[in-house]
């Protein structure tokens, strides 16, 4: 769907030095969106067309309110595109394509473990909401730079969900010091008995997605990971964003992150950069 989303909220998220923004858009996308999907948003002054930058920017859907026809996007100002996006004012209309891709799936029952690295947390929130609504047991492992980041990126909303949170920071300013996978491993050790009951969903840097996949595999927990790739069309037409999977027959195949993903079963992803 190609729509004009109207900006209803656009604000800084937490500590300004984290350069995070919260953008709420009104429009019909909310009606069909679900967790793990994303939009491709035009990051240019809305009334004077510009080629600088040329392409839309993919941003995950971080909040869905179908009653109010609103989706929330949370993003970090990373370069020119997001910097220009950050200027959009309330009332402005932004061209958005979405919802795009295939999101996370939910198990019927049991436990859902969420694993997030940095801003990979954003698409997991609506997933946690859906899972809880469905009566699943949810817990979160979340690693970030430091306390300021975790707090800025929505820690309090997560606390509001009332689920167990296992936090880690690189500098130890909040939660444990170190990597999020270490915490997950500890708990997996304890919970192996119930391994069949656990499903995991992860979003974060590629290296981390690989580590998470390998870790959970050892404990026979199946994990869905959300991947990132540079995008051209965002609808599966340009083959710019492929990732390599290995199919049941052991054959390497390509899938499009934009259309077939961004969420894939961790076990089928080939992490080798050279494919």
């Amino acid at each position, binding site marked *: 769907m190609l729509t004009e989303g109207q900006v209803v909220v656009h604000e800084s998220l937490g500590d300004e030095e984290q350069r995070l923004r919260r953008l709420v858009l009104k429009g019909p996308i909310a009606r069909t969106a679900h967790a793990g999907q994303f939009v491709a948003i035009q990051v240019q002054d809305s009334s004077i067309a510009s*080629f600088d930058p*040329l392409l839309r920017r993919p941003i995950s859907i971080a909040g869905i309110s179908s009653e109010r026809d609103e989706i929330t996007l949370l993003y970090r100002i990373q370069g020119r595109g997001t910097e220009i996006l950050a200027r959009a004012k309330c009332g402005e209309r932004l061209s958005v394509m979405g919802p795009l891709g295939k999101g996370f799936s939910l198990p019927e029952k049991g436990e859902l473990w969420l694993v997030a690295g940095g801003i990979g947390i954003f698409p997991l929130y609506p997933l946690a909401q859906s899972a809880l609504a469905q009566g699943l047991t949810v817990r979160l492992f979340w690693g970030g730079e430091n306390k300021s980041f975790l707090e800025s990126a929505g820690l309090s909303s997560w606390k509001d969900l009332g689920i167990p949170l296992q936090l880690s920071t690189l500098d130890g300013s909040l939660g444990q010091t170190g990597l999020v996978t270490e915490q997950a491993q500890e708990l997996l050790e304890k919970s192996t008995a119930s391994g069949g009951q656990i499903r995991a969903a992860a979003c974060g840097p590629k290296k981390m997605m690989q580590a998470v996949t390998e870790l959970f595999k050892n404990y026979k927990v199946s994990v869905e990971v959300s991947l990132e790739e540079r995008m051209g*069309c965002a*609808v599966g037409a340009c*083959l710019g*964003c*492929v990732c390599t999977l290995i199919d049941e027959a052991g054959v390497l195949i390509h899938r499009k992150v934009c259309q077939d993903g961004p969420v894939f079963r961790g076990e089928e992803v080939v992490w080798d*950069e050279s494919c």
Partner: protein
Amino acid sequence: MSPVNLSTQLAGITLRNPILTCSGTYGFGEEYVAYCPLEALGGITLKGITPLPRLGNPVPRLAETPAGLLNAVGLENPGLEEFLKSYLPKVRKLPTAAIANISGFSLEDYVLLARALQKDSGLAALEVNISCPNVKHGGMHFGTDPQSAQEVIAAVKAETDLPVIAKLSPNVTDIVGMAHAVQLGGADALSLINTLLGMHIDINHQRPVLANTFGGLSGPAIRPVAVRMVWQVFQAVDLPIIGMGGITTWQDAVEFMLAGATAVSIGTGNFVNPLAPLEILQGIQDYCEKRGLASVHDLVGLAHRA
């Protein structure tokens, strides 16, 4: 005002209107269905296919540059057999003309592809990509040497009853010489232009951004080069031209037609705005109406008048 006649004759086929989409930017036609009404288009050009399936290049395959896009997809495609089996049946049902795009690494590759694609396939035409700059030891050769280009086109022409469109590379000293060559080879029309060979380096990692090092530059940045080549070829060669390279607005499309393009094709522009083809069609129509032109074809080459 009487409506403008949009119908476009090209290489013996009749298109509803002169708006096409570019190979490699529009998948096999299904991907944009939810974004742009295909039945409104003159036609679409399918992703380039090769005899055997190809995984293409590793990622990153894309990099943005000022007003441009570098791509190094490396001709990923399902291969001829899978194309015929899984894609062609769907392509036949598309509500617009479909042009296949074929690529190869040898004369035999092209012959094989051409033989398999005939009028009864439901395709409207064959676009022969002799210009893909991404594949090592391959396409580039046919696309930059007039003699080989002529041979490839002649071989394709001998194998298929579909109209043959030769797609030329801009990475040549003499585009007119290439156009002459493919005309001698029997091409029914020309597609101008494919991408310019470029690259981008990530100064933080001190490495090329694209895994393939080089990529093809498309988008508005290359438009002046594309328009120039259309202009030069229109003056020298008597074949209809499909103009492409950086078209994002109807003004761009009109520019190509005034330079000599019989039809125009939108590539990277779709990524920017999936409704671009539709808006461009409307814009061209309005432009013709305002100027009292009965047919969109009256625009073709108009800027060459003294």
